[in-house]
C-alpha cells in the first residue's frame, strides 16, 4: 500500500514538473493576435478513431 502511494506521489511530482515547464512555454508569451477561434472540424467530432494502428 505504502509502495503504491509512493509510486503515485512520484508520478504526480513528475507530471507536475512537466506541466510546469509546459505552462511556462505555452503561457509566458503566446502568439496573441494569431490565436484561432477554434480547432478541429465539427463535422468530424464523432468519427471513429482508426489511428490506433500506429501503436502496433
Amino acid at each position, binding site marked *: 500500500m505504502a509502495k503504491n502511494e509512493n509510486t503515485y506521489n512520484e508520478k504526480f511530482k513528475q*507530471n*507536475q514538473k512537466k*506541466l510546469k515547464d509546459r505552462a511556462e512555454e*505555452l*503561457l509566458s508569451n503566446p502568439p496573441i493576435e494569431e490565436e484561432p477561434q477554434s*480547432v478541429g472540424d465539427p463535422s468530424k467530432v464523432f468519427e*471513429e478513431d*482508426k489511428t*490506433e494502428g500506429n501503436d502496433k
Partner: protein
Amino acid sequence: MLATHLDAERRYELLRQESRIQAQSILPSKLKDSVKLAGISQKELVLAKLWEASPNRQVNWDWKFGYEIYRKRYPKRFELSIWNDYFLCGLAIGRPSYHGSKLRLDFAEKVPDNCPIKGHVMPLILLGAESYALSIGAEEVRLMHPLNERLVNYYNRLGYKYVEGGSEFGQANEKNPHYLYKKI
C-alpha cells in the same frame, strides 16, 4: 446505461478533476487569480448557446446538442471549460484512443467576442489536455483536423507537429486523417 459505462464515467471523472486541479495549480501568477479550469455542465452549455448569435462566430457547432451525445458516448472523454472570473472563455472536448496511448482533441472553441484573456484560451486548453493525457498515461496529444494552414502554423508555434492525412486539407479522411501531435 451499462454498469461498466457508469463505472468508467466515475473513474474518469476523478481523473478529469485531478488533471484540472494539477493544471490549475501551476498557472502563472498573471492568470492564477482570475482563471479557472472546470468541466462542462448545463451552466457552460447555456452560456455557449449565446455564442451562436455572434456575427463573429466562424464555426457551426451546437455545444449543447453535441456535448450531450459526446458525454454519453465517451465516458473516458476529456472535457474542459476555461473561465476568467465569471466569463466563459472557451470549451473543449476530446477522447483517448482505443488503447489509451493518445489523447485526441476533437474540438475546442473560444468565445467569439471580447475575450478578457485573448491569446491565452487555446494555450490553456492545450495545457488542460496535456494534463489529462498525463493523468491517464497517454504519451501523445493529437489535435484532429486542423481546418487550414493558419491553424497549423499557430499550433506549430506551440510545439505541435503536423502530419498530413491527404495531399490537401480537404482530402484527408477518417482512415487517413490529418492532425497535429505532441509527445508529452
